[in-house]
């Protein structure tokens, strides 16, 4: 946690209300997101119990596995969920956008918390390898669901992506509450701090929201009291009714279960839409649309891959794939950090406190300075910035300014005194082709400027060997990936 976030938490406690720690929104919010609130059976890694899902807040769909320990029931549930999710995703993949062009928009799925994301990942693992023919055939929507939720769960690991979001993560990235990070995982108390009902303080509202009878847990784990007092009896009744062949009793018990589960899920459903609305009300950062565009490209690419009959995602990355993916994720993490700092002065302030960025007025400027040491004179203006921030950069360091992100700048000298630091910077590009800078391309005397040691530019990915050339240090070339039969028929546990 940064110092500024700690400070905001202290303020949240003092003022009894969550504090905004960002001036803009750093995630994309779709105009028509799909909300997905899954519940699982306690004590099992991934036994779906129910889900409330839909892209219209007034039209929630409730899906239930009435006998969550029964394999057939699980696949019936997965098929139903598949129809909703694949149908929603497919709505964005109409027509052919043309070569090199992404679809105009992409789907966006929200779950309440990190547990919901993990659940989606496991659900994908259990369903994507299933086959529609041969032994244990399943409806076509099941493996398709598996591929899509796996795709979403993998995208969620990409720092630049907003295709698959957890509400608590998105909210805590923008607000600081007066509770601990663990308590912030609870969507109900988190929203109580951010938007307490009239007449209540954040702390009071959060205390009330902690009561599972008032605000049932947002899943995927259910309240143990509910499991013991309600769920156990209902499941038993349904199983017994089936075994005795009593269709009326079974229908009655199922209707009862549907009502109970609806009452458990509906409060979270409403909170999810509240979270979406709250985030949507923040103005988006300048780079958000650019990042969403990369999501659209990724989505378009995956639609095409499926159309061409691509395999389900492998269970494990091979050595080269793993290294490639890590390089990509690290690159994206750096880009995201830079984007956020450039878009948001409150994020930049954190870097200014750690010495990775500094800001201040230009106290000396030589906009027409020429470097004549080479064969041809080159325009190399020098400016000196005076700042009271700590400066970690030293001679030769590469700098960038949010105001002119493409302009290369290099530290010439850092002159530190007790009460201020003067940094002399040479500007090396982005000033036009002449020996006189284009108007506005060089900061003038008295302008307040900000420079950072990190850059938002895309870095070309590093070179890795091809899979077939995996070296002996990493076990040599792996076998060609083809999904195997045992993956299609393995137990769903």
């Amino acid at each position, binding site marked *: 946690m940064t*110092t500024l976030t700690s400070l905001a938490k202290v303020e949240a406690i003092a003022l009894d209300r969550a504090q905004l720690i960002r001036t803009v929104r750093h995630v994309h919010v779709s105009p028509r997101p799909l909300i997905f609130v899954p519940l699982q059976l306690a004590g099992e890694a991934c036994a779906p119990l129910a889900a409330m899902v839909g892209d219209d807040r007034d039209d929630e769909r409730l899906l239930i596995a009435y006998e969550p320990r029964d394999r057939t029931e699980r696949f019936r549930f997965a098929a139903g969920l598949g129809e909703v999710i694949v149908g929603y995703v497919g709505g964005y993949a109409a027509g052919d956008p043309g070569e090199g062009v992404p679809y105009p928009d992409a789907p966006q799925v929200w779950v309440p918390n990190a547990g919901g994301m993990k659940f989606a990942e496991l659900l994908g693992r259990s369903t994507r390898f299933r086959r529609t023919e041969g032994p244990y055939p399943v409806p076509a929507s099941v493996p398709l669901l598996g591929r899509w939720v796996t795709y979403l769960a993998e995208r969620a*690991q990409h*720092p630049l992506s907003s295709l698959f979001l957890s509400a608590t993560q998105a909210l805590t990235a923008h607000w600081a509450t007066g509770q601990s990070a663990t308590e912030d995982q609870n969507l109900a108390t988190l929203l109580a701090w951010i938007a307490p009902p009239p007449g209540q303080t954040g702390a009071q509202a959060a205390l009330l929201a902690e009561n599972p009878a008032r605000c049932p847990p947002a899943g995927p784990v259910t309240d143990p009291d509910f499991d013991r007092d309600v769920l156990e009896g209902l499941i038993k009744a349904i199983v017994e009714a089936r075994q005795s062949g009593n269709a009326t009793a079974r229908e009655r018990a199922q209707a009862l279960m549907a009502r109970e589960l609806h009452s458990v899920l509906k409060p979270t459903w409403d909170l999810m839409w509240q979270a979406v609305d709250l985030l949507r009300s923040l103005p988006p950062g300048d780079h958000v649309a650019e990042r969403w565009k990369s999501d659209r490209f990724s989505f378009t690419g995956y639609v095409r891959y499926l159309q061409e009959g691509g395999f389900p995602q492998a269970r*494990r*990355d*091979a*050595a*080269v794939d*793993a*290294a490639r993916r*890590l*390089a990509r*994720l*690290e690159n994206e*993490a*750096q880009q995201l950090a830079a984007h956020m700092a450039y878009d948001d002065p409150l994020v930049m302030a954190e870097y200014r406190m*750690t*010495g990775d960025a500094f800001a201040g007025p230009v106290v000396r400027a030589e906009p027409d300075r020429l470097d004549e040491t080479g064969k041809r004179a080159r325009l190399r203006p020098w400016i000196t910035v005076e700042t009271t921030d*700590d400066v*970690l950069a030293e001679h030769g360091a590469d700098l960038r300014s949010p105001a002119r992100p493409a302009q290369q700048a290099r530290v010439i000298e850092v002159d*530190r005194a007790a009460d201020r630091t003067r940094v002399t910077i040479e500007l090396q590009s982005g000033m036009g082709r002449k020996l006189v800078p284009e108007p506005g391309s060089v900061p003038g005397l008295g302008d307040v400027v900000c420079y950072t040691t990190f850059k938002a530019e895309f870095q070309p990915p*590093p*070179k*890795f*060997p091809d899979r077939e*050339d*995996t*070296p*002996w*240090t*990493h*076990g*040599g070339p792996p076998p060609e990936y083809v999904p195997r039969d045992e993956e299609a028929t393995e137990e769903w546990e």
Partner: protein
Amino acid sequence: MSIAEAADRARLATEEILASMESVPRGVVVDSPPGAGKSTLVVRAATELVRRGHRVMVIAQTNEQVDDLTDVLAGHLAGHDGDLRAGRLYSESHRVGWRVERHQNVVSAKSAGELLECRVVLSTAHKWATVTSDEQWAWAIVDEAYQMRSDLLLRVAGLFGKALFVGDPGQLDPFSVVEVDRWSGLSWDPTTSAVEVLLNHNDHVPVKRLPVSWRLPASAAPVVSEAFYPFNPFTAATSPQERRLEFGASAFGDNSVDRALELAARSGWALYELPRAHKPRTDREAVRACAELAARLLERAARTVSERSPDPLPVTPDRIAVGTAHRDQASAVRAALAELGADGVTVDTANRLQGREFDVTIVLHPLSGRRDATAFHLEAGRLCVLTSRHRHACVVVARKGIPDLLDAHPSVEPVHLNVPVKFPDGWEAQQAIMAHLERHRVAAP
């Protein structure tokens, strides 16, 4: 153990390693405790391999390390193989240091193609990863291999046939800025170290050890060995009588800074303990204490007696280091030193002090003044680096109450299938070091 005995043991170990390189199918891993003569081994192995007619590429992790190795290698070559030339491959953004440029027998170039005449070429792993050539190098020597991430090894491993991996398993593990556990348990997890992945796939690769530390004094080797290398103990090459730290000027009056320094001079260790308090990272008093200890060491004209010279040598600023966990702490200590007028003292984070050596180190304890103990602050490698850089004495600056903090925060690292549990873990190592420092405590006012 006398120096002669130690030298014998070290020589035997080195010779065994060099001899084994003849016969191994793919390579050798050599574990080296702090200051055990890793660079010497790298240089000897490189010259030996060249002598046997191989072309050798040397892979280090930072430009600083490459320059250091080039310097030692060039000196060695000049003395033994006058007409052999070493190549220093460097990248656009790096300026080759003066310690490399002064050697006549080093050729520096930006592309490997210009170094074809050199039998041995040195560069960073990142630079090697950009080299595209069909030419195979018979041997690679990978220095600081435990700090190299396995995905970087993947990028360079195609260049060489066999390799000697040298490194210190006790120092900091490589890390990633993204937290993803999708690869944990995989034998090629790209976030783990090069050596780990190599050994996962090649159990025929032997792991050898260097047995004595030339750097650590007799007062430090057993402590560091027990805390960080419990299964692979090592000893100091020197006896307690062979290393001495003295002061040219005596103390004036009685103050805790002087007492801490004198205790450290006598016993090799001191814990300069500030009153218990929770403080931000750049705890002003602790930072000030680090700077005062360093400045006072210079004021009192500290000098060392060791096997290096029969006469006492002065402890100059470049022989002192202050080590911290975070960059902002380092920059605060630098500012405090500048205020006291003590210039030239090295102040850096543990990551950057890796592989370096000083006479006296002053350590701002990673857990000092903290309310919690995170995995970062508990990491065994971090404390190991900080407490094993010195030839004579180490002074640790800390707020009171670290053992209590440790007791309140047992390590809670998740356990993954197929991932061997790291032992000693940071918590255990921290406790061991604190238990030792407890006996060398000086209370600050």
